[in-house]
């Protein structure tokens, strides 16, 4: 067994997902602690063209699992073949695709799984991770049990690592070892439906302005979009707003939506239900705007503004514009 740190790198149209860059950075950091190398496991459309560039974030090698645009889970057998007896840890993004692939490795190789973690390090030669469990009410530290096989599979939340950029390194690219036959390859896309409007990947946003039932309508999101615009951020939502059809489900934050970890989260007209909170509580700064002085979000926001979002948000947008212009 080696001390290498593997990471999953998802590609679309030759471009790595932001999670791939974050995990490359994290893997390089852990590899420097373990005395091994960071190795990317690249899959998706254009993976072989883009894999070498993972070297910019510190990956020494990249193994290409496949180049097609097909359901992520179908890459599981190739991933398992590349992961078997290889390294100390496999970092996977805590996204639906990342979780499915991580789970297939756990079920195939009978290795320990952790996460979603908010911190991970190498201690005494093993992977030690920290996670918030039970809806954030408990923080635990865990390790592999004595004698558990490697690699440890670690699900990592978005924005846990900040991608280093500007590096000139190039990863040495190779093909994945032959995979065993598996029924996991049998899932196929039967139909694909595109949304009318383009949706951003909320996990990649460093500033999020989220709206809830208090936004009251589809048009109600316009001032939130303007604020997000001047802040250079993205718009998100509670399930209540997505269920009402005011905003696409891709922008829902929470237990059954995206788990986000931006530098700044501004929630407007959102009460702060536990299922919403678990999706945003790791934001570095939380600002809430709510007309109810007793809204639960006021108990865990860093800054709680009591007032009508339709007055506060346009005034705030104006003020920030004024300062930026000056």
């Amino acid at each position, binding site marked *: 067994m080696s001390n290498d740190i593997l990471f999953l790198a998802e590609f679309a149209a030759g471009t790595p997902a932001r999670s791939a860059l974050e995990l490359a950075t994290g893997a390089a950091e852990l590899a420097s602690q373990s005395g091994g190398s960071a190795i990317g496991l690249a899959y998706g459309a254009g993976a072989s063209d883009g894999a070498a560039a993972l070297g910019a974030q510190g990956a020494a090698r990249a193994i290409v699992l496949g180049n097609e645009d097909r359901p992520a889970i179908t890459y599981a057998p190739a991933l398992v073949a590349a992961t078997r007896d290889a390294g100390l840890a496999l970092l996977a993004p805590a996204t639906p695709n990342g*979780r499915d692939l991580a789970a297939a490795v756990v079920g195939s190789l009978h290795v320990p*799984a952790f996460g979603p973690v908010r911190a991970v390090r190498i201690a005494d030669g093993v992977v030690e991770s920290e996670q918030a469990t039970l809806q954030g009410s408990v923080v635990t530290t*865990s390790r592999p049990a004595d004698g558990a096989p490697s690699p440890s599979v670690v699900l990592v939340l978005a924005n846990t690592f900040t991608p280093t950029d500007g590096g000139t390194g190039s990863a040495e690219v190779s093909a994945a070892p032959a995979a065993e036959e598996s029924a996991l390859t049998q899932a196929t896309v039967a*139909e*694909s439906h595109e949304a009318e409007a383009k949706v951003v990947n909320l996990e990649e946003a460093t500033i999020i302005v989220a709206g809830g039932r208090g936004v009251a309508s589809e048009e109600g999101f316009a001032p939130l979009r303007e604020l997000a615009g001047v802040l250079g951020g993205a718009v998100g939502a509670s399930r209540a707003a997505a269920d009402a059809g005011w905003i696409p489900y891709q922008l829902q934050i929470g237990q059954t939506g995206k788990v986000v970890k931006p530098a700044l989260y501004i929630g407007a007209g959102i009460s702060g239900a536990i*299922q919403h909170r678990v999706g945003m509580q790791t934001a570095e700064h939380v600002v809430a705007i709510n007309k109810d002085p007793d809204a639960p979000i006021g108990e865990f926001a860093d800054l709680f503004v009591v007032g009508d979002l339709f007055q506060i948000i346009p005034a705030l947008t104006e003020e*920030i514009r004024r300062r930026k212009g000056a």
Partner: protein
Amino acid sequence: MKIVVCIKQVPATGADKRYTDDLTLDRTSVDAIINPLDEYAIEQALRLADAGIADSVTYLSMGPDQAAEALRRALAMGGDDAVLITDAALAGADEWATAKVLAAALDKLAPDVALMGMASDDARGSLVPGAVAAMRNVPLLSYGSELAIEGDAARVRRLSATGFDWITAPLPVVATVTDQVGEPRYASLKGIMAAKRKPLETWGLADIGLSADELKGAALTVVTDARPPEEKAPTERIENLPAAEAATKIADWLAARKLI
């Protein structure tokens, strides 16, 4: 077409939970419920039964004796029978061990669709379904906002980055569904009465052909520390100010933190 729905009993959402001295969850201290996300899997299975597409719906849970209550509650919503896997060797099971036990039980029950929730409330790893699929060597159809059956194949409607896809695979499959399948039904009084007479079997490890040895202490992971989250600085409040003044204060606050 036979469906087995895997349900987990978890501490009630929002309840005050704590860990015991041996760093496992103190399950005696709080109310237990069906994992809320598993109720959507139950609802999806019962809709397929109502439509005459599923011939039978069985519930499967691994947990302590009390988890039988969760199975009875599920049976009150509908469905035919239930199996509880319980064994002293399973205390503190992690996701790997849970998957191993469920996979062995599913091998015995041999459903066309093993249906699960998208995540359990207490761990939120969403790893059990994929691990079960890999162990049983059947396709995984995950995160469906709807599950449909067409001949010898199952398909799920799943959000994509830009819209949604229908993803399909031949039966048998492991499938998971989200809270978008529709609100779970309530158990009627009649349902609660009927549930008392529905078969509920209890199996030990030997019944599914596993030994305590193979389960390696029921976990490949160990928790070395459990603590409350760090205290956050107290919330600052801005109230009773005209919008323009509130905006200035918010902007100052953001600027002080280099966010603008």
